[in-house]
């Protein structure tokens, strides 16, 4: 599928799923679109529906109520879709490890392709992650 991935890498469309985060990762993701970081220069665009997306950004811990929704979103997405887990909550559950409402790690719910740790990750870190993803797709 390398020919397909190369075409995909020219303009990745991103859909953002907030799986019970503290909002900060989401704000930093939106921040990437605004003039200072301007991630549209890589052809990246935030879309409103998972059916249009090539990349699914997930942030937060996965709680009991939102877990079936994430599964459903993933099943609705056109394949191939790349799942990027943003924030420390995704990679290690962060401060919410002892929460009674946390149910599963995200990798048990959907297959994750990339982790970007940080609480929240700096926009520069997210841009680096995205650049690496584009690099891998171009191989």
């Amino acid at each position: 599928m390398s020919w397909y991935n190369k075409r995909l890498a020219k303009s990745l469309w991103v859909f953002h799923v907030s799986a019970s985060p503290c909002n900060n990762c989401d704000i930093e993701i939106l921040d990437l679109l605004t003039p200072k970081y301007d991630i549209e220069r890589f052809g990246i665009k935030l879309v409103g529906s998972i059916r249009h997306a090539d990349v699914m950004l997930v942030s937060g811990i996965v709680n009991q109520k939102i877990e079936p929704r994430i599964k459903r979103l993933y099943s609705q997405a056109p394949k191939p879709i790349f799942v990027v887990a943003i924030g420390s909550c995704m990679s290690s559950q962060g401060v919410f490890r002892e929460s009674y409402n946390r149910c599963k790690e995200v990798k048990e719910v959907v297959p994750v392709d990339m982790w970007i740790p940080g609480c929240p990750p700096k926009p520069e870190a997210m841009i680096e992650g995205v650049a690496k993803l584009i690099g891998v797709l171009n191989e």
Partner: protein
Amino acid sequence: MTKNRIPLGPFHPLLEEAEYFELQIEGETVVDLDMEIGWMHRGHEYISEQKNFTQSIYLVERICGICSTSHPIACVRAIEDIDNLEIPIRAKYIRSLVGELERIHSHLLWLGLAGHFIGYDTVWMWAWKYRETVLEMMEIISGNRNHYGMMRVGGVGKDVKPKDIPDLLDKLDMIDEKMEMIAKVANDDPVLKARLKGVGVLSHEQAINYCATGPTSRASGVPGDVRRDDPHDAYGMLDFDVITAENGDVYDKLVVRVLEILESSKIIRQCLDKLSEVEGPILNNVEEISPGEGIGRYEAPRGEVFHYIRSDGSNRPVRHKVRAPSYVNIPTYEASCKGISVSDALITLASVDPCYCCTERSLKIRSDSEEKPDLLELSKQKTERIRREYNGN
């Protein structure tokens, strides 16, 4: 006319958090509204009771990424209230400084999102461009863009270095200039006026009846502000005005927020002036917290945030209760959304600057097949877990 139902969410293109609204409409008019929350519930109060006091300050920072100074200030005030602790004067100014910087960034964030919601993306891009300057100031002061980690019981964690103050003042000048421009734009722009004037009106009586707080109530002419009514930290020593407006529509909420940014910048200037004069420590050594209970209030960008902490003399809170401002502001939808057209519904829903991460302190999970709520199951699991802890395995 037949009634129709429009579901919004939980993953809607315009909502950055997961929440679910159901609008009942007749023709194009919204006649009723229902909402379901609980998508963001993480059980902070329970986790906080497992941590010690210092750790719980870092935890409440992560209740919400936007109010990540309001919750810690309310939390440390609650802990200090147990023993009536005083904090050093320099720490008072730094607390107010960080709190006001956060207010500017939160209001600019709302302004940008409001522009995005009415399809006016220029406002979004510009407001967020100037918001970056505030985050840079935060980075100079605390080292972090978002979760600042500044608050400690008995003071603050980091000092404002005298050599940084000229740089901070320069950046503040730039924000002031741009905010005056935005205030002028709000006054002149025909699009903003046409879309926002007379939309989603919350009258004076309704604001009082729903106990609305923050800019939501101040836009309806209810001049409540914890900073003035219950002066704490440096607010008693500073000179500022409480901004109010009269009509209670979305436009007035926007104007109140824009003018509050200018007020905040006035407060920051006074704090920086004082910080270059006042010398002294920034942190008192607090060795133990005696048994008792304490409350802490703070005027967050969205309204009054309230923390209650009970201590039994050990190093961790026995009970920690949080009430976020959106908890009282969200029910005002019932008054403001009924009777408006569907196209205005979203900006009205956004106008109180709701923060669901802050609000979702409890949840109820209903399964489709049976009526029995899962909450009972959660409660049983908690009891089981506590029992296991006490038995030591």
